[in-house]
């Protein structure tokens, strides 16, 4: 296979005193968190223009979902934001349940909330690990992965998978929690706050960390809202917006937690927000474990994996007068409602929305995913402008983008 040669570094154009040149960063770059390509127009080391290029991980999720039943398309959501896959699963299930009008038992709601918050913890740990690694702190990476491994073991105890869970089901969850899982998770949330303090002692007041993060990548609340940023990035700019609080789903209305807010809107504020969120996640998990009600884990009207498109017509023996030996008692009818719906949930990255158009069949006519990472990448152009190349790395890390979700 021949590869067309491509200009990596364009010839500098003399512009008075300065030399402007353009640089393509990525898609193979260790600090782009996957396969992001950023086209940079530089004046010395200052970024004059930053154009993110996405699509290197486009896999056609939305098209694939059109050819699967709602229950079968669940496994695709694992691979969207693969760092916090459980939160995606939960978000998808909540959306389909609201579309099809399926009720979820209380125990399943609590288990899902626990699982989603564990997912938030593991996502934030990986974010901190890679963000700190990009900025230059190797130890934090190793420390974070130590705790993340415990979390992944807990996930394995819960559902047998480490990364791609497909654990929630439409109308409940796949299997009940074991007593061992509850004990181990209780032990983990007891030790975890001290581990967060450990990370904080490493970087919170570290001079290098502060110089790399404070005042870098500033984003005001109004700007962030205009760019469609959600999640911790928006809250770091001081906008109080958390779907868990303001549009509760699952068991979030049963538990008490705070939405941590920053004010400066810089990389450091987003870092502080996510660290506080980890504390709040522990709080939610602890309350859910305490309140975990008994009962079924999947609702009676939860669909099968192969969802029947139509209820079979019921026939009965009739007279010959009307021409047939059988008459229909109940005509075959659509089991699924038509229409469209947009349901958003708060995943670790921000607001993950699913937009379905249903035309009364067992598979969506159209599924659109509103992914937070896509919005965050588009915000990179604004955040990085006027900064240095080194700060771009800090910005990419701090916006917490996952390309699987962005490119879909």
């Amino acid at each position, binding site marked *: *296979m021949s*590869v*067309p040669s491509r200009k990596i570094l364009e010839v500098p154009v003399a512009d008075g005193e300065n030399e402007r040149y353009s640089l393509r960063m990525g*898609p*193979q*770059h*260790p600090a782009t968190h*996957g*396969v992001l390509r950023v086209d940079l127009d530089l004046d010395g080391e200052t970024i004059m223009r930053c154009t993110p290029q996405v*699509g*290197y*991980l*486009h*896999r*056609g999720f939305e*098209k*694939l979902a059109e050819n699967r039943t709602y229950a079968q398309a669940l*496994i*695709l959501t*694992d*691979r969207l934001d*693969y*760092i916090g896959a459980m939160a995606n699963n939960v978000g998808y299930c909540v959306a389909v349940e609201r579309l099809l009008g399926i009720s979820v038992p209380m125990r399943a709601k609590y288990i899902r909330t626990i699982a989603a918050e564990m997912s938030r913890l593991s996502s934030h740990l*990986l974010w901190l*690990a*890679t963000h700190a690694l990009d900025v230059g702190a190797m130890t934090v*990476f*190793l*420390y974070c*992965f*130590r705790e*993340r*491994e415990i979390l*992944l073991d807990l996930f394995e105890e819960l559902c047998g998978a*480490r*990364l*791609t869970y497909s654990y929630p089901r439409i109308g409940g969850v796949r299997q009940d929690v074991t007593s061992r899982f509850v004990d181990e998770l209780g032990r983990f949330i007891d030790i975890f706050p001290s581990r967060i303090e450990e990370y904080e002692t490493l970087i919170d007041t570290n001079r290098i960390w502060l110089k790399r993060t404070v005042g870098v990548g500033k984003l005001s609340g109004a700007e962030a809202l205009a760019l469609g940023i959600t999640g911790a990035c928006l809250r770091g700019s001081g906008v109080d917006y958390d779907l868990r609080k303001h549009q509760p789903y699952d068991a979030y209305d049963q538990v008490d937690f705070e939405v941590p807010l920053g004010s400066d809107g810089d990389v450091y504020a987003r870092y502080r927000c996510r660290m506080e969120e980890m504390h709040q996640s522990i709080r939610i998990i602890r309350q859910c474990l305490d309140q975990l009600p008994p009962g079924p884990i999947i609702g009676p009207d939860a669909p099968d994996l192969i969802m029947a498109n139509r209820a079979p017509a019921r026939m009965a023996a009739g007279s010959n007068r009307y021409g047939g030996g059988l008459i229909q008692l109940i005509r075959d009818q659509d089991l699924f409602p038509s229409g469209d719906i947009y349901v958003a949930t708060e995943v670790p990255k921000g607001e993950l929305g699913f937009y379905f158009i249903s035309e009364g069949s067992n598979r969506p006519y159209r599924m659109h995913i509103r992914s937070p990472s896509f919005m965050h990448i588009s915000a990179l152009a604004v955040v990085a402008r006027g900064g240095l190349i080194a700060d771009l790395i800090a910005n990419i890390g701090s916006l917490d983008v996952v*390309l*699987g979700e962005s*490119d879909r």
Partner: protein
Amino acid sequence: MGEVTVPSMVRLEEGVRWIPGANALLGPLNKLVNWGRAGSIWPVTFGLACCAIEMMDAGASTNDLDRFGILFRASPRQGDCLVVAGTVSKKMAPVLRRVYDQMPEPRYVLAMGSCACSGGVFDTYAVTQGVDQIMPVDVYVPGCPPRPEALMEGFIKLQEKILKEQFRWSQWR
């Protein structure tokens, strides 16, 4: 002083022996070269999708890949092995091939995960159905994603393969 000890040799690999007192290795050149290569596989970090997270996990504190002499390098110029961790989309395929072409020989490719092996669940218009369509692959590690232990097993298989090499690089000797 005065007494000459007979050096007892320690067998490191098949055909490679270490003489501790003399601080020397003894063996046929191809075996020595293979032993050296197998013990210092430096993969290029090429995280594409979900599998990259498990690859990072394999390199992090719990499953320490450094034990195998495996250090991740960020540049293809310093890499021996390309771990294709994740889905290769059609947009990414030329980039991947370019990175592969930039690597110095001998180079090895480890396809990690179902997507890199065969396309996995993503049988769509946008995804390359297996990385072996664009470059030769030495080891396939199936799984979606494979566990870090599976990746380690893949690396051990690659080491076994390197140790058995006879004629591939013979023109250099």
